[in-house]
């Protein structure tokens, strides 16, 4: 049986960053990554024009070269899944029957695109863009398709609508919500995004839902709940993420939608950690347990989890530390850049300070809670404000007496930061 000091399940950004951090701080401890993918690549790039429209080489998607693993003495066990965890024996069983022993285990298994829950969603032409194979399939489909539908009103749909338009397709966006990115954005921001989509040639159907997928082997169209029929030969589905947790739950790891951890990214089982999209962690900034699916969060959690695995292994100079970060997400498309940071779920007692407006084509909403502190913000075409706002969130900045500065578009927010 192969035995590792540090065993990581998942080779995405959380798992790979963790492996890198472990190696930097423990030169000799054995490290392995178990992954069902070929090696670490940029999920972010999959929906960006340089890559999707093949303006840059396909190989630029790889963020680590093959040699990197060997050079850093990291065993990459590829093409397999972990299927069983035995925390008493400290072993992991793999889909090829092999068993690995661990001293410290990191679960960084991520998630998969939520499948379209309709009969016929296995037809050809129904595409997702969560992993490399899905992106390849979609890229091939875009080359021959004429009319696509996009389902969902989040960042996947937004970015992919642009890719498909740039690929020369007619695109119809079908969303259940009354406006784009409801309820995380307000109507004004949502309408700004819709205006950009429509200007880019996307037809938007609001409060609409597909009831039936048409076609034989390949999708030929859809019927909506109101009876409308739409012809299409491609459907891009962006309706969220699911985590496969059965084998983890069976091992006695506490789960909800993700794997539950404390602020140190420790699960309820000894020496078992979780990081990245799969972790439902105690967020010290928001003061509650949340699960976030985004690149930077996964990367920073990979680093913190590794740090705490090192600390509990007694590596000198490494101290256990909590994960604390104002999380944020950015995306681009149709000439807009959009970002959200902190907590953007509005409660009626919160105050919103507006900075800019749709009319001047940039619009920031600063969300202030009942403690007079900024807890989150949304940014359209004004991401340069995100750095200072995140620092204000982190430093529990009191808003009273600063409202006019926050809303004054000529005021540089950096002036509010503690010196």
């Amino acid at each position, binding site marked *: 049986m192969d035995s590792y000091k540090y065993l990581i399940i998942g080779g995405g950004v959380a798992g790979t960053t963790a492996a890198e951090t472990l190696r930097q701080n423990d030169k000799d401890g054995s490290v392995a990554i178990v992954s069902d993918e070929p090696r670490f690549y940029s999920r972010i790039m999959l929906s960006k024009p340089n890559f999707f429209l093949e303006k840059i080489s396909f190989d630029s998607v790889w963020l680590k070269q093959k040699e990197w693993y060997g050079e850093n003495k990291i065993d990459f066990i590829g093409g397999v899944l972990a299927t069983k965890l035995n925390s008493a024996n400290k072993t992991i069983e793999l889909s090829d029957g092999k068993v690995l022993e661990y001293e410290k285990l990191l679960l960084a298994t991520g998630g998969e695109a939520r499948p379209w829950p309709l009969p016929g969603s296995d037809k050809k032409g129904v595409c997702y863009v969560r992993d490399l194979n899905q992106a390849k399939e979609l890229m091939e489909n875009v080359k021959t398709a004429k009319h696509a539908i996009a389902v969902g009103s989040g960042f996947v749909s937004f970015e992919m609508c642009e890719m498909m338009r740039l690929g020369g397709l007619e695109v119809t966006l079908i969303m259940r919500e009354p406006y784009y990115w409801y309820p995380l954005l307000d109507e004004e921001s949502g309408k700004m995004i819709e205006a950009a989509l429509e200007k880019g040639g996307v037809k938007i159907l609001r409060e609409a839902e597909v009831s039936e997928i048409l076609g034989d082997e390949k999708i030929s169209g859809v019927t909506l709940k109101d009876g409308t029929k739409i012809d299409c030969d491609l459907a891009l589905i962006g309706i969220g993420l699911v985590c496969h947790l059965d084998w983890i739950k069976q091992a006695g790891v506490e789960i909800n939608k993700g794997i539950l951890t404390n602020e140190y990214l420790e699960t309820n089982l000894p020496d078992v950690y979780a990081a990245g999209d799969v972790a439902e962690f105690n967020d010290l900034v928001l003061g509650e347990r949340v699960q976030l699916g985004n690149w930077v969060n996964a990367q920073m959690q990979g680093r913190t989890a590794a740090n705490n695995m090192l600390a509990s292994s007694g590596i000198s100079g490494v101290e256990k530390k909590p994960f604390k970060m104002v999380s944020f997400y950015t995306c681009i498309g149709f000439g807009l850049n959009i970002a959200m940071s902190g907590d953007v779920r509005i409660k009626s007692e919160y105050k919103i300070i507006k900075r800019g407006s749709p009319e001047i084509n940039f619009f920031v909403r600063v969300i202030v809670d009942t403690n007079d502190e900024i807890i989150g913000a949304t940014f359209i075409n004004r991401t340069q404000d995100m*750095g200072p706002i995140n620092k204000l969130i982190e430093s529990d900045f009191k808003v009273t007496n600063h409202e006019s500065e926050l809303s004054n578009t000529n005021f540089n927010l950096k002036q509010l930061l503690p010196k």
Partner: protein
Amino acid sequence: MSNTKEYIRNREGSNISKIVIDRDLCIGAASCIAVSGETYELDNENKAVVTHADAADDVTLMMSAESCPTKAIFLFDKEGKQVFPK
């Protein structure tokens, strides 16, 4: 590299003497800022720019470049040799 910006670094004891950002590759993901907010910020075109090239130590600077999901940050040593991406 076409649309790039170069930043000279003079931090004492550092082996990295130049940071280059390819603005065509940068998508404003801001992961570099999460790693080293003292070094980078986003500008009004949603692109990362270096505000203080000397602020971070070499390890942090390397991490910030490695964190970029589009490999838009390039680091060079004193001899002009590219040290990241390798």
